[in-house]
């Protein structure tokens, strides 16, 4: 198959030995590839997580006690939790509110699951560290200000347990909490610690849940809990769930738009370069025709150069797109991004498609070249 060799030789030499304008087209394709793969990787991988990340800006479902009861039974809460799709539950955080006394003034102490609270309220900022033991507490910012206490200090609280005499307990401040919400006025401690102090376990005042499902689905889940688990009144935190969906939809539209615009610009750039190249090479085209090339030869050679260009550009673009995706992903979403194979194939295909589309008119122009006219040059 010697003639195939000759074809590749013509195409390669044309690209390699000419001080090639095609470089501009190559860079255009590379840029297109970068954005396509970069956006694709971020868009493919992140959005599935994005729902989680967004929803985690506050809970979107809360449980309170139904009827006249003041507290939730945690076994009932577990039953309710079993009705939720486990893989969609980002966090399920119980909060138990009790009043204790510090220098004779009442202060609200909140018992919660610290690990879970970090998930359902990721915007909480802690100066110092989160409590790890039952005797460690977080001071809300406002409380810290009033008491002039800081991380590492100790604090004595007067506790009135459910049964028995009141007593004083000394606890260690592990950190100061800034929540931007009501918690700034509270003292937080591990639920197990609070249960031990109060001499009663298994209850909560409210449970906040963050669940990564769309609004309508969440409503259905809430309804099934209301009907299926007595003692629990689920409530949707509507506003947040809605804005999440809107933000996601807008983000998706933005990704599509940016990608489409970039691909379009890539096509224009490749097309313009190809056009210039064809114009510059009219003599060569005329000569090839004069020595016997048919239009199919001319078209094949230009398209061959296009395909090679697209391949090389796509490869370059994929490498830089991968870095781009990683950087965006790490800095914006604080997570690693994965690269599915289909995205690599899709980037290559898209580059080819864009280049071939862009080459269409230039190749027609090349086939139009009249050898008699171009070689006549006096």
């Amino acid at each position, binding site marked *: 198959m010697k003639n195939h*060799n*000759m*074809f590749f030789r*013509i195409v390669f030499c044309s690209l390699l*030995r000419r001080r090639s304008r095609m470089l501009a087209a190559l860079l255009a394709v590379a840029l297109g590839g970068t954005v396509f793969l970069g956006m694709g990787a971020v868009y493919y991988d992140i959005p599935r997580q994005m729902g989680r990340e967004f929803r985690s800006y506050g809970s979107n479902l809360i449980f309170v006690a139904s009827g006249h009861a003041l507290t939730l039974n945690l076994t009932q809460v577990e039953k309710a939790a079993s009705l939720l799709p486990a893989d969609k539950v980002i966090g399920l955080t119980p909060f138990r509110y009790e009043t204790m006394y510090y220098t004779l003034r009442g202060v609200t102490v909140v018992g919660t699951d610290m690990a879970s609270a970090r998930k359902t309220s990721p915007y909480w900022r802690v100066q110092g560290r989160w409590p790890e033991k039952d005797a460690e507490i977080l001071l809300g910012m406002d409380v810290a200000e009033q008491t002039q206490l800081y991380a590492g200090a100790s604090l004595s609280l007067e506790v009135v347990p459910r049964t028995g005499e009141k007593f004083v307990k000394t606890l260690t401040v592990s950190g100061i909490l800034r929540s931007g919400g009501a918690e700034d006025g509270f003292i937080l401690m591990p639920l197990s610690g609070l249960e031990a102090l109060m001499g009663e376990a298994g209850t909560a005042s409210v449970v906040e849940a963050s669940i990564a499902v769309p609004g309508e689905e969440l409503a259905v889940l809430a309804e099934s809990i209301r009907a299926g688990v007595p003692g629990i009144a689920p409530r949707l935190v509507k506003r947040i769930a809605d804005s999440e969906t809107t933000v996601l939809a807008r983000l998706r539209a933005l990704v599509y738009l940016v990608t489409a615009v970039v691909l379009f610009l890539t096509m224009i750039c490749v097309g313009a370069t190809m056009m210039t190249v064809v114009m510059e090479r009219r003599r060569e085209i005329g000569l090839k*025709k004069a020595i*016997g*090339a*048919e*239009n199919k030869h001319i078209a094949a050679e230009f398209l061959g150069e296009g395909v090679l260009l697209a391949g090389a550009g796509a490869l370059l673009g994929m490498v830089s797109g991968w870095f781009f995706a990683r950087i965006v992903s790490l800095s914006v979403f604080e997570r690693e991004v994965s690269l599915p194979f289909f995205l690599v194939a899709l980037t290559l295909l898209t580059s080819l498609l864009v280049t071939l589309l862009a080459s269409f008119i230039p190749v027609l122009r090349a086939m139009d070249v009249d050898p008699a006219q171009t070689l006549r040059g006096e």
Partner: protein
Amino acid sequence: MNILELHDVSMVYGQVAALRNVSLTVSPGEWVAVMGASGSGKTTLMNIIGCMDRASHGVVILDGEKLSRMAARDLTAIRRDKIGLIFQQFHLVPYLTAVENIMIAQYYHSMADEKEALQALERVGLQHRARHLPRQLSGGEQQRLCIARALINCPKLVLADEPTGNLDEDNQNTVLDLFHRLHAEGSAIIMVTHAPDVAAHAQRVVHLEFGRIVNDAPRAPHGISSGEPDKCAVGNMAK
């Protein structure tokens, strides 16, 4: 049978009549020089004979094939098979080496064959330049390369439009020597030239004036006389 017959051929570009009622017959192996002032229609004539253009009027018969009615595609095929083109500006593909410039003509014709292409280079004395790009060759070398390319597919008719127009005397003589060898091997040659001393090498000189043939004179034969084309020294013989 004649290799070329033109009957009453005219070529009109808009208002300009580049050729008017030209009739011309060329026998196989004949070497014809075409002379005339600039703008007299020499290149136009060569383009029509070379299947690069179609005449506005008249009949052109090349090696028994009537060109006047052919589609551009068929003209390309005929040009490829029967014609070897040599230009005043040595048109070469700038990014292909000397040997590749010959192979590309083989490739469009039938099958690229490097060995044969190298033999063709040897024939014009360029074997040591095989891997050089056109811009690394002198004008004379480029024209010799063009000649080697024109001959690679064993054309029955070689068309050369002012082949020595851009060459100094030494190179002109080298090229003319090649033409003599070609002629001796039996190729028909039509060669456009300004220079009487170049035209003197041909067997016959045709004068064009304002698109008309005004003088068609045979010259005293010299060198080996022509006969039937007998062999193709270099080329795709096995086809």
